[in-house]
């Protein structure tokens, strides 16, 4: 029996309509409230003003999006590489898993607020501390997804392969690894959203450029409209990455779609 796995959310544009409508109406209400109440834009800028700021500062925003993207990708690649290598080691050596897993769990209990300044202190204002922080945040979910995924392998398929004379490595390559793919993608979609937030936070604590720096500077000069403009960009960034992983999943896990349609 296949164990249940979170499936792909939302199929097609039609399913997205209610979400789009509710978000749009929230913005409309916000806009109306700001206009009617006459609240100062230093307190709460209207969505239209935020949009204006995005257009006005597009060069600045773009220049600072690039370093954030770099940190996100570099950190995520590092975490993926380490998580995958380690997951293979742990799968072949259950004893090592029991020894190391508690350490990984503890790594997840460290508050980012406290760790980020220390990492910046140790590694400076370059890319390194951001990469490390993104990796720290995304590594564990990816590792757990892979390890759980391997464990979800149908024991009958493993027995079958063993009866064929397959080695442990054969079984890993042909059965356990493919079985973990749905879990891997579930983990990937969660981690990619953490990754952007972690990158921005790392920049916020100390960096030369990046969306985190834009937010920090805008906050310090009492520009909530510019803060929100940067927030919108970072959200868009996350959404684009999320969509990219969803598309990749669609291609790699085509067989799951077939199963679902049955």
């Amino acid at each position: 029996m296949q164990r249940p796995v979170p499936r792909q959310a939302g199929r097609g544009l039609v399913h997205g309509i209610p979400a789009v409508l509710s978000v749009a109406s929230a913005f409309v209400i916000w806009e109306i409230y700001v206009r009617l109440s006459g609240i100062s834009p230093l307190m709460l800028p209207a969505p239209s003003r935020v949009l204006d700021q995005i257009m006005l500062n597009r060069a600045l925003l773009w220049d600072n999006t690039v370093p954030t993207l770099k940190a996100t990708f570099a950190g995520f690649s590092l975490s993926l590489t380490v998580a995958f290598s380690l997951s293979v080691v742990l799968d072949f050596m259950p004893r090592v898993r029991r020894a190391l897993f508690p350490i990984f769990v503890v790594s997840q209990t460290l508050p980012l607020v406290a760790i980020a300044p220390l990492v910046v202190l140790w590694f400076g204002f370059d890319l390194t501390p951001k990469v490390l922080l993104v990796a720290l945040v995304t590594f564990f979910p990816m590792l757990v997804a892979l390890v759980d995924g391997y464990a979800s392998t149908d024991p009958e398929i493993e027995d079958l392969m063993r009866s064929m004379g397959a080695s442990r490595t054969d079984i890993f390559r042909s059965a356990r690894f493919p079985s973990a793919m749905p879990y891997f993608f579930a983990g990937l979609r969660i981690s990619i959203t953490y990754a952007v937030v972690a990158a921005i936070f790392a920049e916020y604590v100390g960096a030369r450029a990046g969306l985190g720096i834009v937010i920090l500077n805008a906050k310090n000069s009492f520009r909530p409209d510019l803060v929100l403009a940067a927030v919108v960009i970072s959200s868009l960034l996350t959404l684009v990455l999320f969509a990219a992983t969803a598309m990749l999943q669609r291609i790699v896990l085509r067989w799951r779609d077939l199963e679902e349609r049955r």
Partner: protein
Amino acid sequence: MNLLELNHVSVTLGDTAVLNDINLHVAEGEFVSILGPSGAGKSTIFRLLTGTLPLQDGAITGAGQNSFAFMPQRDALMPWRRIIDNLTLGLEVQGVPRKKARAQVTLLLEDFGLECFTSHYPAQLSGGMRQRAALLRTIVQGRPVQLLDEPFGALDALTRTQMQTWFEARWQAARWTTLLVTHDVREAVALSDRIYVLSRRPAHVIAEITVPIPRPRLGRPICAQVHAIEAQLLETLLDQTGEKP
């Protein structure tokens, strides 16, 4: 010539004695069934033969790990592989190059009625077709003995009957040396040359019955002889479950 012999095989799992002094043999080209109540330990015999379970007591002769091709209860097709790549799995594990493995599978496709489904995923096939694919995956490994663990058990009644009839015809043409595990009396009588009946746990052989009825046996009116054997088997089995009136 016996391709497989079990002599005084006993197995204890934890505190439970599962197999108690099992003796059986399968000759070349013979179709032998192991019939027993559910949970008697029929599948344990297969786990011994496929090496999933180490042999504790007794001897298995004529066997190396490479003597058997195993077909599990559920089809165990890999849902992420197309049918063709599922079918070549055993050859792939043996180290046969992909092209050659595919060629070997292709030779059998038509006999198994799978020639139009090679690029499908398992999820796109009906239960009966999946079972055929699982059987082809077993046969194509070219092992001397085929071990079939309730291959039709998971199918609905109609599909099962169709599959049994189809299988009988295939078997008659190819005469694979086969050891079948089942708890379906009718299936055992329809397909087997000989039937071993197992007792309740700890299982031992309580009857060995030869079925001297000419093939094909399915798809024609059931003769009195079949009835007699079925009745005899059923009585032996019911004796075991303690449900005989």
